[in-house]
């Protein structure tokens, strides 16, 4: 079984939840509730990054999401036409972001957590830029026992 669908929204933070809920619903029969949470969060973080950092909050730009549902994995690509993100930003994103000193208020992060969360919640994360577009490809594998 392979089926795929493309969805798109305007680069407006108010619209992100609509898309996230739609994609979550698509994954409902394939993923456990925890994994649906993981996918929804990763997608929201990815789109927020595109709108906030790629398009600098400007509305009227296109954000596309391609979802591929397969027997063993859910693949989600977030496609934008903003200036590309430097590759080291994704390379450096890891759970180390949350290795802060909780006794030091100044050390607790207020932002810059999105990519680390995506990395922690998805099984594969890749970023490709070409002249025409950027693609963040995220894969969640379907655990055999989660069905």
């Amino acid at each position: 079984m392979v089926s795929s669908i493309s969805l798109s929204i305007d680069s407006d933070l108010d619209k992100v939840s609509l898309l996230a809920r739609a994609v979550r619903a698509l994954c409902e029969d394939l993923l456990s509730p925890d994994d649906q949470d993981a996918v929804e969060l990763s997608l929201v973080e990815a789109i927020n990054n595109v709108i906030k950092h790629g398009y600098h909050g400007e509305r009227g730009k296109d954000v596309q999401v391609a979802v591929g549902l397969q027997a063993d994995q859910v693949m989600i690509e977030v496609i934008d036409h903003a200036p590309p993100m430097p590759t080291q930003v994704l390379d450096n994103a890891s759970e180390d972001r949350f290795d802060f000193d909780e006794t030091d208020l100044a050390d607790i992060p207020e932002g810059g957590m999105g990519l680390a969360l995506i990395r922690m919640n998805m099984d594969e994360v890749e970023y490709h830029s070409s002249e025409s577009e950027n693609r963040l490809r995220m894969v969640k594998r379907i655990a055999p026992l989660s069905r």
Partner: protein
Amino acid sequence: MLSTDLRDNVLVVRVEEKRIDASKAPKFKDEITRCIEAGQNQIVLDLSQVDFIDSSGLGALVTCLKRLGPKGSLAVAGATGAVSRLFTLTRMDRVFALHPNVDTAVEQLSA
């Protein structure tokens, strides 16, 4: 977005939204900041109605905590599912005391 209730000198702030995401985080932060500037420094945030929070929402909470300063307390009550999972995943459960419900949180803060 928020409703508030003062109990034993603890301000209970109930979030009346299902999602705290990047579109809501700025307003959320402003409204809680207003409570802090009005002099409240013991705050319980009731998240029992919230079923999704992203890193912007979580970041807004951290900003509020920093504004409260070391003398204030910001406790979280009623976080479940994806919300409680985000606190654990980001290790923010070390920063915010998580309570099963408002009563327990208020009891703890007013003690």
